[in-house]
């Protein structure tokens, strides 16, 4: 019961993180600076400092909750996957956990690169880190969703 509640919380944090990092990615990739008040302008008009803090906190919260419910996955989900010969599903989850760990190591640098005083000098690095974190967040969310559809926690 607690594991299911934590899994739902893990998913909700994932949705929120997905929204935050995608806002930031689209905002970075969009070069158009003139604002017309359209939906796209509003979508990309993010307060970068606030979003950076939100992304870091949400990422760490999602990672910690994922680490807490990991034993449930190992005992109640992965073993049935192996019995069903769903090696690809086990592989997808393994990649999800490894990517999440590697992504966590980028958070201090990501946070530093979004500081106003290094905005000019670290533009390319900021772009690369944000896109990479965005990829990891999307990957982890989609894989988690697919695997939960095959077999969720009990």
């Amino acid at each position, binding site marked *: 019961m607690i594991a299911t509640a934590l899994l739902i919380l893990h998913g909700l944090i994932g949705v929120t993180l997905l929204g935050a990092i995608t806002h930031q990615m689209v905002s970075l990739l969009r070069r158009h600076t003139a604002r017309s008040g359209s939906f796209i302008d509003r979508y990309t008009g993010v307060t970068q400092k606030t979003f950076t803090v939100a992304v870091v906190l949400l990422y760490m919260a999602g990672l910690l909750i994922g*680490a807490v419910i*990991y*034993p*449930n996955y*190992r*005992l109640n989900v*992965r*073993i049935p996957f192996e019995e069903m010969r769903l*090696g*690809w599903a*086990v*592989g997808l989850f*393994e*990649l999800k*956990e*490894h*990517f999440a*760990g*590697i*992504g*966590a*190591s*980028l958070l*201090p*640098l990501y*946070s*530093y690169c979004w500081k106003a005083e290094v905005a000019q000098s670290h533009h*390319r*690095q900021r772009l*690369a*880190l944000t896109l*990479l974190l965005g990829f990891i967040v999307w990957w982890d969310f989609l894989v988690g969703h697919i695997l939960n559809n095959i077999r969720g926690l009990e």
Partner: protein
Amino acid sequence: MTAPRFGPTTFAIAFCCTYATVFAMNSPLFLYYPLHGDFRWGAQPLHGAGPAIAWYGLMAKAAIVATAAALCVPDRLLGRVLRNSAWLFAVAAMLVCVFLLRPLFLH
């Protein structure tokens, strides 16, 4: 006495290199056995304890090495190219993981 400055670039590079190496060498700091809540140092399997989780041990080892490196090697000591390409180390570590896990997708 001033506190040592933390180098985020050094941390990211050291973490990614350590993580990929430790994963490739199957050398986590410890294994966790969730069935009975047992911990064991290193990668030695504990027979009869059920399935093991290595990820906590991988993360812990990479984090310890990266934190030590980030406190000892300030970012300014890294070359400019290295400073600007920390994200490439993360991509490389991810590709190492994909390569090492390929048997799961091929069978």
